[in-house]
């Protein structure tokens, strides 16, 4: 017999099973860790039932847990890692956002910088300096995309995700 506890979540499950044998004092409880990505509950139950075929009572309980949100894999912000953004204008008057991030081992260089077209999205933590573009900063650079890429060329860099999605769906 087995019980399935369904609905806690969907990415990993633990099989908790209890085995007892007739005329024996052996009672064992075990936990088997399984990932739904790599197996399925029905197969695991079949394997356990086959392996413990001589048991008089094999109780199996399946506990679903959210593997992808397993607490031990949760990562807080790394101490010492800092990011920020500034604005920069090039010789042609084009404004870009410069994303800065420091290195773990500060030797000859301690910060890397990356020129981006728009401010980052969710990449800065509380207290880290963020850049804000004004409407004038959203200048279209006609040379960025090839001439055949008219979607990008006609809308510049302020292409919104929704627009991209619509164009993708049209294809």
């Amino acid at each position, binding site marked *: 017999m087995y019980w399935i506890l369904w609905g806690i979540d969907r990415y990993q499950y633990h099989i908790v099973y209890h085995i007892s044998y007739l005329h024996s004092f052996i009672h064992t409880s075990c936990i088997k860790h399984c990932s739904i*990505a*790599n197996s399925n509950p029905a197969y695991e139950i079949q394997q356990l039932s086959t392996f413990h075929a001589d048991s008089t009572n094999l109780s199996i309980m399946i506990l679903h847990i959210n593997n992808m949100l397993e607490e*031990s894999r*949760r990562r807080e912000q790394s101490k010492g890692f800092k990011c920020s953004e500034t604005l920069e204008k090039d010789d042609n008057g084009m404004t870009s956002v410069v994303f800065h991030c420091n290195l773990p081992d500060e030797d000859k260089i301690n910060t*890397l910088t990356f020129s981006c077209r728009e401010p980052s*999205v969710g990449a800065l933590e509380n207290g880290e300096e963020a850049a804000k573009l004004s409407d004038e900063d959203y200048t279209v650079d006609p040379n960025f995309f090839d001439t055949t890429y008219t979607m990008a060329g006609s809308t510049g860099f302020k292409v919104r995700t929704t627009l991209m999605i619509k164009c993708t769906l049209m294809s």
Partner: protein
Amino acid sequence: MIKHKQVYYIPQVWTGSRLLIETLAWPNSNDCDRLKEIQQSICKGAKLIELGAGVGVAGTYLSSIGAEVLITDLPTLVENAIDNNLARNAITQTDDDTCPSWLAPDGIPIGKGWASSASLDWTCPLDKQLTRQQSSVDFIIASDVVFLSSMLNSLLKTVESIFQSSLGSSFILSFQRRDAQDGKESSLFTTVDGIIDAIKAKGWKIDCLAWRPVSVSREASDGKVSDVETEVFVFEISWK
């Protein structure tokens, strides 16, 4: 004529890049053994290819701590974003100024490692775009490159081609959940379930190396912008 096959994303930094960098370059005492192994390998000069690099943050960063990285994306991004960013971060921290042969002749010293760029379109065969040497790597990395469902298949086809010429390699993918509740209902956005199903269908393994709750701004159809809470993941995907 609109070129529909190519999907663009705005060259900017997303949450996935940050978590990928922190996970791979900033060891934490709670990291699992497998993650520690990957971190050490990267610092000791592992060969990486970055797919859909955008502005090249993740690949450039990992090269600066010791890796050899081939940073790839569509030609226009390589030319206008990645190469410029490699040039602005070019500086060596090692005595050895010999560019690794697989990144030559355009390899650039970045801190303790090396990086180079190459154009790569996932909708075209890999062997027509990269040399055998360029596609033989220890790790494939990608930051948040499959936010649309339509991108997932072509990405996985490219990854499969690289796996075939890089036995023992694995694919480290960061991914920010974008749909409201996740699950199989979203037809536009790639979901965590969607990724797991696609990986299972190929008979590959997937594990979560790290995750973090994040707050991102989202623009509604009426133009209003609000912050939403979601999660960002770093997965390791490998052949069984």
